[in-house]
């Protein structure tokens, strides 16, 4: 998928915005990312992931209805340049976003989820095709 998705309706964005905490918690619950890790390490990764997911949620809630990809593209650039230095490769970020999308599908009404999911799919597509260093 490469075309930038059409802006979702205000009702879909409102539900997405209001149910952010549930979506983030559900993503962490579904994620097998830090399960192999023990004790403190698992705690650190889980808390970094929560912070990242909360940020992603607020970014999407903030600009989902802005036509044009510039703002989300800027976030992709930042994620692929900075996050590897925080221990998250683009492949990990893409996997987390896929779980985030799964959580959106399980939390929002089907109609609203179908409007938000293409944005996350677009982000995944951009992150997996972006060069991993030297952008932005």
């Amino acid at each position, binding site marked *: 998928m490469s075309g930038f998705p059409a802006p979702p309706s205000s009702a879909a964005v409102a539900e997405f*915005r209001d149910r952010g905490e549930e979506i983030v918690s559900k993503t962490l619950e579904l994620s097998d990312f830090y399960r192999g890790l023990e004790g403190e390490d698992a705690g650190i990764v889980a808390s970094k992931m929560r912070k990242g997911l909360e*940020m992603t949620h*607020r*970014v999407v*809630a*903030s*600009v989902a*209805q*802005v*036509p*044009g990809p*510039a*703002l989300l593209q*800027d*976030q992709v650039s*930042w994620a692929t*340049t*900075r996050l590897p*230095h925080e221990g998250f490769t683009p492949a990990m970020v893409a996997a987390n976003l896929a779980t985030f999308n799964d959580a959106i599908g399980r939390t929002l009404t089907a109609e609203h989820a179908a409007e938000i999911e293409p944005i996350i799919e677009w982000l995944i597509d951009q992150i997996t095709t972006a060069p991993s*260093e*030297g952008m*932005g």
Partner: protein
Amino acid sequence: MKKSGPDDRTFSGNSTTVSLASVAGEYLETILAGDRRHAVDLVTEVADSGIPIKQIYTDVFQQCQFELGRLWEENRITVAKEHLATAITQLAMSQLYNRFDFADRVGKKMVAACVGGELHEIGLRMVADFFELDGWNTHYLGANTPIREVVEMAFDIGADIVALSTSMTFNVEKVRDAVEAIRTYRQPGGGPKILVGGRPFNVEPTLWQYVGADYFAASATGAAESVGKLSHHSASVEGERR
């Protein structure tokens, strides 16, 4: 950024083509080394030579802050170094205040704030200082201000402009909420106009319209120019963009 040599430091406020690139290079090295005294000496010396404060803000402070961001993003400096350097720049900005060459007061007031959890306040402070230099009375509230407080102060003091800033895309929704709150309060034809700016507004040049603002400017220089007309006329210049 270009590294300065001893001879690069000759500058004169009379020349309109003066380059502060070498000063910025030396200033960046100084703040990264944590030498507060030298950093302040360097910029006060430049100001005393007659270079306008606005130019020092833009060509030295802003350039170096952008460079810090790039270095941090690429993991070439630590978070601690970025904090150290930013704190020195805030100190240096304060030191220049008593050298401001203010225009006569124009009888206009501004409330300037970063709303929600927004912590990036230097850009907004530059905007507020530029207006102050132009003769405005600016109420600069800085980072992380609750929307309600901004709105109340704006209406209490009868502000002509509310300036809202965000650097983080995730705070755009807070700016939008703040604009809506101000619009809910204001009577048709009255109340403060809303000026917005900050990184996301530069990345997406139509964003100011999306959040419902009256004006946008990409920099402190542009902001002062764009709203400057208000100082002389009371006519609305709604929707204008620089």
